[in-house]
């Protein structure tokens, strides 16, 4: 019985080692001029809110923590990033037409207002991503005013 138990543990450890060789590609692209932080003149507060609460999953640049690189956590994280980028990728901001920008900003404001974004599971691990009521208000106010500007072509 003990033998079997030892064998199971051993196999488990072995599996854990083997899966480390199957890592998803990292989300570590270059920041180019289409990135929202480059192509828009953002207030300091907004840039840091975006960086702390949004850009890990909504851009081509993720700031990984060490254990994000360990499978199977890395697979889970990669799934989140892929999904986040398919919904909204702020690295491509500069390539969008005005309608896309307006609708993205409107979505951002709504999600933040409703507390749907940033995701709770993300906030649990990334304390900086936790938005206070004031931060939520400034992020939504910024999104709303920028969308007005884009709409009127200012």
């Amino acid at each position, binding site marked *: 019985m003990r033998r079997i138990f030892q064998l199971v543990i051993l196999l488990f450890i072995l599996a854990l080692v083997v899966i480390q060789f199957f890592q998803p590609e990292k989300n570590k692209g270059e920041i180019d001029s289409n990135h929202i932080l480059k192509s828009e003149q953002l207030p300091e507060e907004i840039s840091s809110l975006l960086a702390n609460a949004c850009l890990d999953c909504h851009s081509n640049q993720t700031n990984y923590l060490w254990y994000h690189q360990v499978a199977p956590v890395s697979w889970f994280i990669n799934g989140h990033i892929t999904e986040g980028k398919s919904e909204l990728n702020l690295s491509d901001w500069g390539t969008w037409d*005005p*309608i896309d920008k307006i*609708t993205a900003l*409107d979505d951002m404001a709504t999600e933040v207002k409703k507390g749907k974004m940033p995701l709770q599971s993300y906030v649990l691990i990334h304390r900086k991503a936790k938005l206070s009521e004031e931060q939520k208000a400034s992020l939504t106010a910024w999104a*709303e005013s920028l969308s007005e500007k884009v*709409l009127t072509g200012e």
Partner: protein
Amino acid sequence: MKNLNLITSLFLVLLLSSSISFADEKPDEKKITLKMPEDVRAVVDNSCFGCHNTDSRNEDAREHLDFKTMHQLSDIKKLGAFKEIREVIEENEMPPKKFLERRPEKELTEEQKKILIDWVKKESVALMNQNQ
């Protein structure tokens, strides 16, 4: 036996009245408040309005999009709504598959999809031009 007949007839009456009230709730053209071409209106009326209106019992649907109040939205919210309409149609998410299992006649044909998509594109551009 008499009792059973009574129950059956009661049941029938109930069934009838419920179908009548359902017929009453059936969307009619006047209830869609946004101005739109007739061909678009016909598609919206047939495949969307049933759930996407203020009095719908489908809370999720009416929160996302409400054809009874859509004319009151700001231009920005309208642009958002148009984009979402386009996305859910292009990705075949609407009308929902489960709904279509019961009401296959509500499924959008390729032609109807094109009518809706062309409409939202045109409306979005018009909204942008109005504001520039």
